[in-house]
């Protein structure tokens, strides 16, 4: 057979192929050518037991130009509060739903649905008087019995309402004696009731009435959510993650001055920053640290840093040697002198300046100064300074002598440790690299190892198969959760203790603070707990990462900077389009 013959088969097919390509090319070209391309600030007056948000005036503008477009690097996983894991979902909940109380930008708790509230002498009965004028987004009036139904639904089915059940733990009974009064009776005094009620959303009962199993409830997307909040859900696209919200013109505290909000998801930070530069979005809920300096230089863009509660820590294996399974950590870590020498060997300011490019603050306590407006952070703690000489003398005094290989040892105890960290961000690796040198100067050898986050969880809780770990926490607005991380009870499968810290006195204080309704008494207990963690060093807190945000000043004005972010309801109620 000749080559001429061989090519005949191709001829007809190639012609067909060419024709199809030509047609598609024409279509593409056609499609391509088609492209073109006053109000008063809502302020919160904090009283002893009653607060109120000042109403706003009517909106001044409408339409697409008055819609704030946010870019963020995430997306809500669901709009069903029964089972929402991701923080983006909770941002949306706060905008479309109302709660009895809410956290104000100064960190205090103020009334939202509640006009005022009081607690009985025994700390067991909370009475809330509701503000009038709230309506559901479908126009129906809101009444106290609907909120009572919502909280009761959570209390009756904690398995189904998995992600909000903790906020109603210890509630015995919730009733509505009249349309504007709600009474919550609790099993024991609850120290952080204002915080808890800021997460118990008034969701629309008909949306959640007909579920018979927890799985059925949790799989409900709630993408037509009806609330009483400042913004009305227009669209939530599960695939693209886009959320469109409209301003609620009938909002009880006055309509927002913007027409609505768009949250658009970006999969990489560079593209998101570029979108802000060219005006594709008006604001970013989080600016990548590596791009912050660049964003500062953009025309008509304001970039800002805000103190935050997010902290990075060095975890020192503190697991009880009698634990089952037995921990594999180097026993030298149990020596307070070794821990102290490590603390002396950490140059936190360098970590802030070099690794974080100045966009952080050196840390000391697991409760950051930014939490609750500074109320919970213990101001009496004095951080251990970076001092290599002190690190060496501390170890020398404790009997650890320097070997010929530059590593200290005492008997069988050799100061050589594994240092593990998650592979999720390069920050951990940079911190580890700097630690290697600092620790080496004190005669401590560490071997850094990057790991998947889930592997790290498996290595820490409840196995204790590690020496040192660098990790980070984004705590709740209330100290309770981050304090719980240090309790003995949490060092179980599925628990949150990774250090294995076990201190009965700490555990008792933790239980006590939960029931201290008096804020000052609770503050004192929490300060003492912080000191215990600081002195025993299951964690050495390295630094608090700043919240980095930005917005276009040629589009909107009035964003309020706070640890809650410029996307908080209070901030967005204050935002006005630039004329």
């Amino acid at each position, binding site marked *: 057979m000749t080559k001429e013959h*061989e090519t005949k088969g*191709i001829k007809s097919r190639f012609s067909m192929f060419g024709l199809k390509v030509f047609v598609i090319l024409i279509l593409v070209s056609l499609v391509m050518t088609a*492209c073109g391309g006053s109000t008063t600030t809502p302020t919160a007056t904090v009283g002893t037991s009653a607060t109120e948000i000042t109403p706003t005036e009517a909106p001044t503008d409408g339409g697409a130009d008055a819609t704030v477009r946010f870019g963020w690097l995430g997306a809500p996983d669901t709009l069903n509060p029964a089972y929402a894991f991701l923080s983006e979902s909770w941002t949306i909940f706060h905008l479309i739903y109302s709660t009895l109380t809410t956290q104000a930008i100064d960190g205090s708790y103020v009334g939202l649905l509640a006009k005022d509230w009081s607690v009985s002498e025994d700390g067991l009965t909370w009475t809330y008087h509701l503000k009038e004028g709230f309506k559901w987004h479908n126009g129906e009036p809101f009444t106290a019995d609907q909120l009572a139904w919502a909280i009761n639904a959570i209390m009756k089915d904690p398995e189904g309402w998995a992600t909000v059940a903790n906020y109603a733990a210890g509630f015995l009974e919730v009733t509505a004696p009249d349309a504007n009064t709600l009474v919550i009776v609790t099993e024991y005094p609850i120290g952080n009731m204002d915080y808890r009620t800021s997460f118990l959303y008034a969701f629309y009962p008909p949306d959640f009435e007909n579920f018979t199993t927890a799985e059925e409830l949790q799989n409900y997307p709630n993408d037509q959510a009806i609330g009483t909040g400042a913004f009305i859900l227009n669209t939530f696209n599960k695939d693209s993650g*886009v959320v469109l919200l409209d301003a609620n013109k009938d909002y009880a505290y006055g309509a927002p001055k913007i027409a609505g909000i768009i949250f*658009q998801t970006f999969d990489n930070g560079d593209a998101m920053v*570029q979108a802000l530069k060219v005006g594709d979005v008006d604001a970013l809920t989080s600016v990548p640290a590596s791009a912050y300096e660049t964003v500062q230089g953009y025309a008509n863009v304001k970039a800002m840093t805000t103190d935050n509660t997010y902290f990075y820590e060095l975890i020192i294996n503190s697991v009880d040697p009698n634990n089952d399974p037995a921990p594999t950590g180097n026993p030298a870590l149990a020596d307070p002198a070794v821990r102290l020498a490590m603390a002396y060997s950490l140059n936190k300011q360098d970590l802030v300046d070099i690794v974080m490019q100045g966009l952080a603050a050196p840390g000391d306590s697991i409760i950051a100064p930014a939490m609750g407006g500074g109320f919970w952070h213990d101001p009496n703690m004095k951080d251990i300074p970076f001092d290599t000489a002190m690190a060496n003398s501390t170890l020398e005094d404790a009997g650890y002598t320097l070997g010929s290989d530059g590593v200290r040892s005492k008997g069988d105890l050799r100061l050589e440790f594994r240092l593990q960290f998650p592979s999720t961000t390069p920050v951990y690796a940079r911190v580890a690299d700097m630690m290697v040198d600092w620790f080496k100067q004190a005669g401590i050898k560490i071997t850094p190892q990057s790991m*998947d*986050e889930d592997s790290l969880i498996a290595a820490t809780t409840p196995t204790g198969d590690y020496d040192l770990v660098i990790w980070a926490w984004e705590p709740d607005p209330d100290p309770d959760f981050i304090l719980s991380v240090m309790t003995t009870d949490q060092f179980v499968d599925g*628990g949150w203790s990774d250090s294995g810290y076990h201190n009965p006195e700490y555990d008792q204080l933790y239980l006590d603070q939960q029931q201290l309704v008096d804020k000052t008494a609770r503050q004192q207990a929490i300060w003492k707990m912080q000191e215990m963690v600081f002195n025993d060093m299951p964690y050495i807190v390295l630094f608090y990462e700043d919240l980095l945000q930005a917005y276009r000043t040629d589009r909107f004005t009035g964003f309020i900077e706070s640890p809650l972010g410029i996307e908080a309801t209070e901030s967005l109620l204050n935002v006005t389009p630039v004329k």
Partner: protein
Amino acid sequence: MNRRDYLLRRLGLSVVTILVVFVINFLLFRVLPGDPIRSVIGRNIRISAETQQALREQFGLDKPVFPDQLLDTFGQWARGNLGISWSLRRPVSEVLMSKLWNTVILIGLGQILAIILGVILGLLAGWKRKTALDVGALTFSLVAWAIPTFWLGIILLAAGSTWFGFPTAGIVSPANTGKPLITVLPDLAHHLFLPTLTLTILYLGEYMLIMRSSILEVLSEDYILTAKAKGLSDWQVLWRHALRNAMLPIVTLIALNLGFTIAGAIYIETVFSYDGLGKLFQTALTKQDYPLLQGAFILLAVSVIIANLAADLLYTVLDPRVKES
């Protein structure tokens, strides 16, 4: 062996391959270290130990991998059910289908443009060998082939959005979210331009280089000399005699690339926040979402197997020597 037997044998082999892929698919993700439930929720402060256990039970993770999980999974697959995504809490088939067409549109357009331009450029470069055109095309193709995807995407995104107003993310504008794509074609085209251009440049180099070397080889054949001696024009020699034979390797390459098309372009979809399969794979992997990963890999494997089957069958038509052997 007649054509029917050959077809049946190839089909049978493909089915066996798919079954092997199913088994490997099941095992592969379960040898990963760590707890998938913790991986899905991360350091999530709202999930208690009890809730984590309830999740494990709900997804059958509290049962042994052998034989319980294996039988459950194969039973579901046999019924055409790919399961529920743990992280998205939606049926895997629904999630995959919602992304499939987005990826097919993007990769399809990019591939078609890359094929057309690459073949034309390779043909001209080979025909005009050692001219400025050849050197220029060769340099461009080598550079295009060597450029990291992510880097090219970011550069085009920055330039395109700054100077030409192209959008920075998504498949359509947020305001058009949820509308049928057919009703928002101009917006879709606007969003598709930069990712398609990136993909075209990246693949164009490959097609150009293959086409150039192929045409050079063909041009040295005796029958080309004969054609020229017959007095045919350059165009006739190129079109009738050289191009057809030189296209054989390109057809192979197209078949191979189309097989992988379904995998999407992870980097391109990530740069342009494009809601496609590539991005979904990445998310599923980081979340250790077994059902989603399994579904995605089955889709990918089946696509590659079908594309290879199609290429095998096409070869029997294009090259009779294959059938004879």
